[in-house]
């Protein structure tokens, strides 16, 4: 076999300088190792996509999610030349029995001006339920300019059986809002998270 290989290499050399003579005696382990790095890397990359997607959406606003933390009102100059219409839509996720509605359906507001809307919720069932409201803005780009200084959606919303509540949301629109947006919709979806959040909110309810 040794001789064979030698002969072949000689033959190959005579024919042309080939970049790749090595055959089965090559260390395949090295090549496999490199490929395995790629495999593991891509597996991790897929999980890295989860936070990357969040960051990307926060920067571009493409999925219409609003900031999950309260903004501080920086008292920008109110731009009275523009009036922005904000629509409020409420819905409950399927299987969520609460009544949930916006007391103000629509607000006309100048950029920079503070606005306040209240949402009414009632738990008509005989059991305690913890809810989570998830906001979504359409068009998504507007979410970057919607600043909420106070919102019920920042916390869980626990209601005892039969209880009702008014939940406030205070906001202002960044005067930087692009010229082409004069109207946007803020939608809240209420999810029943009693099962997953029981422990966490025990404290809050007492």
């Amino acid at each position, binding site marked *: *076999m040794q001789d*064979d290989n030698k002969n*072949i*290499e000689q*033959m*190959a050399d005579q*024919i*042309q300088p*080939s*970049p*790749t*003579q*090595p*055959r*089965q005696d*090559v260390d*395949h382990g090295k*090549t*496999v190792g490199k*490929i*395995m790095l*790629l*495999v*593991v*890397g*891509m*597996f991790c*990359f*897929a*999980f890295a*996509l*989860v936070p990357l*997607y969040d960051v990307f*959406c926060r920067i*571009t606003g*493409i*999925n*219409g*999610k609003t900031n*999950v933390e309260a903004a501080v009102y920086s008292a920008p100059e109110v731009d009275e030349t523009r009036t922005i219409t904000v629509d409020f839509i409420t819905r409950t*996720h399927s299987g969520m029995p609460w009544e949930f509605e916006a007391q103000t359906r629509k607000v006309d507001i100048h950029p920079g001006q503070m606005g306040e809307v209240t949402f009414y919720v009632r738990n008509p069932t005989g059991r305690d339920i913890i809810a*989570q409201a*998830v906001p979504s803005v*359409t*068009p*998504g*780009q507007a979410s970057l300019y919607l600043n909420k200084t106070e919102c019920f959606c920042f916390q869980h919303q626990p209601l005892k059986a039969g209880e009702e509540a008014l939940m406030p949301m205070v906001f202002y629109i960044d005067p930087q809002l692009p010229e082409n947006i004069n109207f946007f919709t803020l939608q809240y*979806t209420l*999810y*029943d*998270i009693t099962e*997953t959040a029981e422990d966490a909110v025990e404290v809050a309810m007492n």
Partner: protein
Amino acid sequence: MTSATDTTAHVDGEHHDDHHHIPKGLTRWLFTTNHKDIGTLYLWFAFIMFLVGGAMAMVIRAELFQPGLQIVEPNFFNQMTTVHGLIMVFGAVMPAFTGLANWLVPMMIGAPDMALPRMNNWSFWILPFAFLILLSSLFMEGGGPAFGWTFYAPLSTTYSGDSTALFVFSVHIMGISSIMGAINVIVTIFNMRAPGMTYMKMPLFVWTWLITAFLLIAVMPVLAAAVTMVLTDKFFGTSFFDAAGGGDPVLFQHIFWFFGHPEVYIMILPAFGIISQIVPTFSRKKLFGYASMVYATASIALLSFVVWAHHMFTTGMPVAAEMFFMIATMLISVPTGVKVFNWVATMWRGSLSFEIPMMFAIAFIVLFTIGGLSGLMLAITPVDFQYHDTYFVVAHFHYVLVTGAVFSIMAAVYYWLPKWTGKMFDITLAKWHFWCSLISVNVLFFPMHFVGLAGMPRRIPDYALQFADFNKWISVGGFAFGLSQLIFLALLIKACRHQGESVSDQVWDGAEGLEWEIPSPAPYHTFDTPPVVK
């Protein structure tokens, strides 16, 4: 075949101690590390899965023969569409290509076997178990997966049955099998080419498979991650895709299609390679534009990573993103067009003859192009809003996958079968198989364009009355196409029994390449001493 060992010197007993004899019986197939045996196993497995997945398509078409619900429950219908898709993608097309790679890559580059023969055995033998798990989930209480092969969240997380766990594990096993297969192909091509076989001398089938293997390495782990997230969302309380817990269901689609789009090229690039082998043989000319074929394949592979969101236009993306994905998608038609024109240019003024592999290859070129054109239509964002989730999409991907990938696999089998068995297959049966398949496949899939444009949604067991006539024809075409494959089965059984006329080493008189220089049938061990490529 046992006596047909090749002319190489086998001096030392240290390795190749099984050189003179082929092991017999079941253990030969269970323990084999021979690339040809494993190739055969893959191909038979793929064909069986093709028939199983096809049987599910027959259930779907039987239900859709008439409007109204008559044969199966809607939930079972959903399981059929789901498992049909999974089986055809992961059980039929991908293993068939891996089988062809096993048989042909070593023979084409002058290697004695795949680089990692034991892993090769593993990568095949875990596959039957993956599909056993998937298929057995259909018999569980509540049934098997019913959320479509794309397993969108929350369908697969919130609204699925307990059998989702089985689905996830079976996809994991399929993924591991594919990754091992891809590693083997890459290492073999990198390290085991015969002296003088430079990269730009490799046959195009080898080139396309090398690029496909890299796509597999890049995206199968992403699929594994996606199913893992579905698993933990469903059973362990995570919220990757659950808005209530801070996740986002649209994120699922991004991750899935980041895998999914390169996946469709995984299923078509080897087909391009096959056609690029067959067309020159029966045109008796060199392939037109070899280098441009290689670069076109590589560009398609690269572009496939930046077009995934064209599956998601209707999720509500910013206009700029829609524009980007639309244009990137349309750009893919450039390298694909290069390929189609190269094949046509190869045939141009060639000395054509129309043997069975060539007939399948020409059918591929025409019908795949139809599928490509409807793909181009789907890429246009504004019209996609109308076509999305209709039968037009079904027509599109069946043209590229059935008359594309599957026809290319059939072409490949007919082209290399005489080399594998040493006998010419039954040409009369093959002609029947070709013409029955060609006619029925168009009766089956072409009218889907019309009902799709008219608004018939996919994956629904019932439809509005105005679609009744077309659907009847579609179903008739479907049954005919299904039955036509039994002709293929009969032909393959005959071929495996080594019936038919013996063939020469070259088999086809225009065939060129290392695999045509070894004896027919291909000896159990080939190229123990590497050939020298000039």
